[in-house]
């Protein structure tokens, strides 16, 4: 019963994605079909890349923390990214290589985010093994601190420059640099593949630390490994398109409700497809309804925020 129902959902998801990809590529090309097709088809891969990375990262993270409302960005990766962009902007100005060269910016952002989170993980797994919430709390506090520093700098920036800085701190697929997609794929695909392979082990984590240990999982080392992988996935998405924490949150939570299963293999695929679907439809809204007056990041934040509140209230009634 359940299996056939889930298969049906998968078929529906896949076919709507195929339909939306087709629509995305062909609708409203204003006579320049070849041009529009070339431009738009370049974005399809980033859609999938970001959809899969952020959703898989969120699901793994939520299993580890046994909490369906947290996202990996809670450790402050978003804030660190925004702070970096602001600092570069503030101290080096518009024409610095870190602003103008996407490759350099991408690599520096990526290294900073991965390095920062690894530092946090090492510290806590060395000094306070098994105290995950403590680590999350520390990350969160650091994130809050980064934000207040960002805020401080942003107020001082010339209002004319501010517009272009702000655009960089909100997720958008409109400015994805296609040449960065290959390197992002090289990083994320092996990680995604590995996590899919680990589905059965991840299932066991639902039973809690004691049983996972008793069933032969080296919980502490395993968690460290997972945290690192999750932060790399999140960092790649963030460096590529900007902060998209809510995307994974939406994909993960809808998949829990839709598939009603604990199995990570199903949740990973289902949740990621939901996110991809969300990106596709959101991007079409951005391009055709809002005429590029807004970005996908804003839509994701808005929709995600409202969905979060709904879940928070629902959690209560359950």
């Amino acid at each position, binding site marked *: 019963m359940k299996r056939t129902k889930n298969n049906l959902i998968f078929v529906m998801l896949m076919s709507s994605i195929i339909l939306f990809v087709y629509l995305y590529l062909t609708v409203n090309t204003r006579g320049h079909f070849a041009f529009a097709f070339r431009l738009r088809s370049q974005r399809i891969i980033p859609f999938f890349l970001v959809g899969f990375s952020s959703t898989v990262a969120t699901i793994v993270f939520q299993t580890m923390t046994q909490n369906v409302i947290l996202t990996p960005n809670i450790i402050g990766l978003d804030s660190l990214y925004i702070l970096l962009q602001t600092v570069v902007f503030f101290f080096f100005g518009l024409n610095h290589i870190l602003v103008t060269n996407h490759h350099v910016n991408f690599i520096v952002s990526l290294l900073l985010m991965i390095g920062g989170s690894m530092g946090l993980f090492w510290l806590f797994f060395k000094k306070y093994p098994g105290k995950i919430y403590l680590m999350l709390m520390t990350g969160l506090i650091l994130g809050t601190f980064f934000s207040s520093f960002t805020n401080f700098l942003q107020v001082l920036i010339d209002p004319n420059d501010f517009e272009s800085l702000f655009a960089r701190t909100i997720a958008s697929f409109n400015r994805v640099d296609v040449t960065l997609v290959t390197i992002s794929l090289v990083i994320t695909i092996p990680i995604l593949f590995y996590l899919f392979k680990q*589905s059965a082990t991840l299932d066991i984590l639902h*039973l809690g630390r004691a049983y996972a240990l008793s*069933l*032969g999982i080296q919980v502490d080392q395993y968690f460290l490994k997972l945290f690192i992988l999750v932060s790399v996935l999140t960092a790649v998405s963030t460096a590529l398109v900007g902060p998209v924490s809510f995307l994974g949150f939406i994909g993960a939570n809808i998949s829990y409700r839709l598939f009603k299963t*604990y199995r990570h293999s199903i949740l990973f695929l289902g949740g990621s497809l939901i996110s991809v679907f969300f990106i596709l439809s959101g991007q079409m809204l951005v391009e055709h309804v809002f005429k590029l007056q807004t970005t996908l990041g804003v839509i994701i934040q808005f929709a995600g925020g409202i969905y979060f509140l709904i879940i928070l209230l629902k959690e209560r009634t359950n």
Partner: protein
Amino acid sequence: MMEVENLTKSYGETIVVDNVSLSIEKGKLTACIGPNGAGKSTLLEMISRLISQDTGQIYIDGNEVKTWKRGEFAKRLSVLKQTNQMNVRLTVRELVSFGRFPYTKGRLNAHCHEVIDNSLNYLGLIDLQKRYIDTLSGGQLQRALIAMVLCQDTDYILLDEPLNNLDMSFGVQMMSTLRRLVDELGKTVITVVHDINFAASYADNIIAMKDGKLFASGSTDDMITKSVLDDLYGMDVEIIESKGTKYCLYYT
């Protein structure tokens, strides 16, 4: 045969388990008793490698347990903790099938299904196998967890206060299940119990802990005596015998 040598664990200044050495007979039901805060659970957690000891060694069948990989260890010894809430929607059968993880890493084969069926059967859970665990009563969930542990197919089974939150009849049911695991399947069961009468009626051997130290250990017959229990609990315990079993009266 399990041997524990000079096991010590402390948290900050407090020594929770203090230089404990003991041995546990194979194929027997051993109960671990003692007042609150005696270090029983901590000892159990160290033996089952849920936490690591500060000093000391644990040997199972002559091998230091630390030399085993965790995955291998999980095929030798399983542990049942006090049921902490699990907020995941699993059916009983799915929960029990997790016990096969050390062998198959999640890909169940025909043999696994056979073992799962047997365990469910053994604990009378066949009718409940499709139920979600969050709809079970405390006693049923406890049984489901035992079935999972049984599925893990280990020689040694450790339980941390399995009688908590169970009423008398479920308590009796649980202890006789453990007895059957020993008598029929040849398992070695070590369990922490609070009620000494359950230990007196069902255990082969008893380990008594007090203030982090091993207070006494031996066969149930030797241990359930006025002199041992009076000192252990610091109160006046009266022992009466009925139909060949000793009972402790400690209400005054």
